[in-house]
């Protein structure tokens, strides 16, 4: 177990280097010149541009810039924005908001998705099951912006339960609606995955054994059925946590949540290479951590999966 964790941590190093390299390279290839952009339409003295480029190290070849960036990164220095703000400050401001939003969406996904999937699976072919299949298909097919606007119209404009956009991004209560929108797609997938898994496992021989042992129905389902059925769901949830963190751009835009997506969107618009790279680095770390947790959870759920 310990060796497995260490090996997985070591495997993260090349993945981490690879992704940061890719993103740095891609940001470098972006069209447009961030230094020139500082002046907008105004005319600038080329000598002044050159001196700023030199001061920022932008006149060096890109691989040298990458090495410098990585060197600073390992010392905890994410660089500065063009407006001379520390990128780390931008991240620490936006990240807690997105973490809350993503975790809230994640909880919706697990609680609602698994519950709905479980009951649909147990009532296979009945109206609840059919309703679930239709509803989840609907959720999967509706684009997130459309769903966002529907929710805004219904819950904010018509029912007036909430304000259409988020006023205070750190307020959990205000994040509920965006989290529902953010989690809706994955919720549909989790419900369907759980349902399929339940339907498959309920016919398994060991479930028949559990019934033959005289266990009450809730024990048959809770102890024997649900645990076996959670394995594919956990795989999805693990990769989804990372996707929720990075995928909140649209949702955060609709609801004006000042999180990672919002900050990333602005950074891309302004061609802020350091900010983009900084956020991607953090998201990669989150993703790697989530997949490690999933792999460890596997072993807890299914002892047949050896850490070999």
């Amino acid at each position, binding site marked *: 177990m310990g060796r497995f964790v260490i090996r997985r941590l070591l495997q993260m190093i090349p993945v981490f280097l690879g992704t940061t390299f890719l993103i740095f390279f891609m940001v470098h290839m972006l069209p447009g010149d961030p230094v020139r952009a500082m002046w907008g339409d105004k005319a600038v003295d080329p000598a002044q541009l050159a001196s700023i480029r030199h001061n920022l190290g932008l006149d060096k070849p890109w691989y040298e810039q990458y090495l410098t960036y990585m060197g600073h990164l390992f010392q905890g220095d994410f660089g500065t924005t063009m407006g001379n703000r520390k990128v780390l400050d931008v991240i620490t401001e936006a990240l807690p908001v997105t973490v809350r939003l993503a975790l809230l969406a994640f909880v919706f996904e697990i609680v609602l998705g698994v519950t709905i999937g479980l009951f649909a699976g147990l009532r296979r072919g009945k109206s609840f099951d059919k309703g679930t299949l239709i509803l989840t298909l609907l959720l999967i097919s509706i684009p997130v912006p459309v769903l966002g606007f529907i929710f805004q119209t219904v819950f904010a404009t018509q029912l007036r339960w909430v304000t259409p956009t988020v006023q205070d991004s750190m307020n959990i209560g205000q994040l509920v609606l965006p989290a529902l929108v953010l989690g809706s797609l994955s919720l549909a997938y989790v419900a369907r995955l759980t349902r399929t898994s339940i339907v498959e496992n309920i016919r398994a021989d*060991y479930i028949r*054994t559990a019934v033959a042992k*005289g*266990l*009450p129905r809730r*024990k048959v389902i809770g102890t024997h059925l649900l645990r076996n059925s959670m394995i594919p769901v956990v795989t999805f949830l693990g990769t989804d946590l990372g996707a929720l963190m990075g995928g909140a751009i649209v949702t955060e835009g609709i609801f004006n949540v000042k999180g990672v997506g919002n900050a990333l969107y602005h950074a891309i618009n302004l061609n802020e290479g350091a900010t983009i790279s900084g956020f991607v680095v953090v998201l990669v770390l989150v993703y790697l951590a989530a997949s490690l947790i999933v792999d460890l959870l596997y072993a807890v*759920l299914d*002892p*047949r999966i050896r850490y070999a």
Partner: protein
Amino acid sequence: MTTVTEKADSGERLAPGTPLLEVRDLHVEFVTRDGIAKAVNGVNYSVAAGETLAVLGESGSGKSVTAQTIMGILDMPPGRVTSGEILFRGQDMLKMSNEERRKIRGRKIAMIFQDALSSLNPVLSVGYQLGEMFRVHQGASRKEAKAKAIELMDRVRIPAAAQRVNDYPHQFSGGMRQRIMIAMALALEPDLIIADEPTTALDVTVQAQVMDLLAELQAEYNMGLILITHDLGVVADVADKIAVMYAGRIVETAPVHELYASPAHPYTKGLLRSIPRLDQKGQDLYAIKGLPPNLLKVPAGCAFNPRCDIATDLCRTEIPALHQVADKDGAELAGRRSACHLWKETLHG
């Protein structure tokens, strides 16, 4: 160690001669997209305490469906019991509530399944799965349950039980896994054990060990045993009586040795002839011609008639009753019945 005499809540003593379990005229069918499959068509059999009944038949003969119906683990729907009674200690289990039946399952009647690997939960330790019996039915604590699980594993002779109690099913060999299934069935010292092809998935050498263990424990606890199998070799040593099933009906019943010596039904005869024997090396194996019937359209008359060498017009039109079998002098043979119009010819011919 608990013994038979200390056995808790085993209920009132049965009057001598009363069967522990009696299946009466049981009919079970399955509703499928293509029609109604009649899986069990009027099965009667009974088992007394300490007695072993072997139920013999090919796949689809209804032997497992009957067992699952007794156990109350038949999938309903698509399955449904259309008529009949299953009397356990004189009470019809088909009339009991779900909760009453659940309390009988595992505690009074236990079942051993064919494939122990798929029948044990892959993600729970064997100790947990054994201990669950005591926790659910007797309210034992986790610790007590584990101690009892180790004791059970010892009793079915799993080496180093205390070290292996936390292992998972996939870490055991096939024979050891089946021993765990047996231990699980034995846990609460039930009155009756139904073993559905308990040795089919095992190597031949292990088969004998597991069968011997089962027979020994059955004798020790004076349990009734219903042994479902398609393997005539398994049956010979352990069974007291045999019921041969074909297309959802019992076609012959007999004390075990009499059935082997002188079958009274052409199907039984065919089964016995199809056992490979060392002294027939080099000859072709005998096989009953044709295939088991499709349960959606069972042949008219005797279901076996299309495969039978001696079938007459009567066999093709009239379903034979389960006749009492008699010897050449007309004296009835105890416990022997045959559902063949031509049982006399088959037995004496």
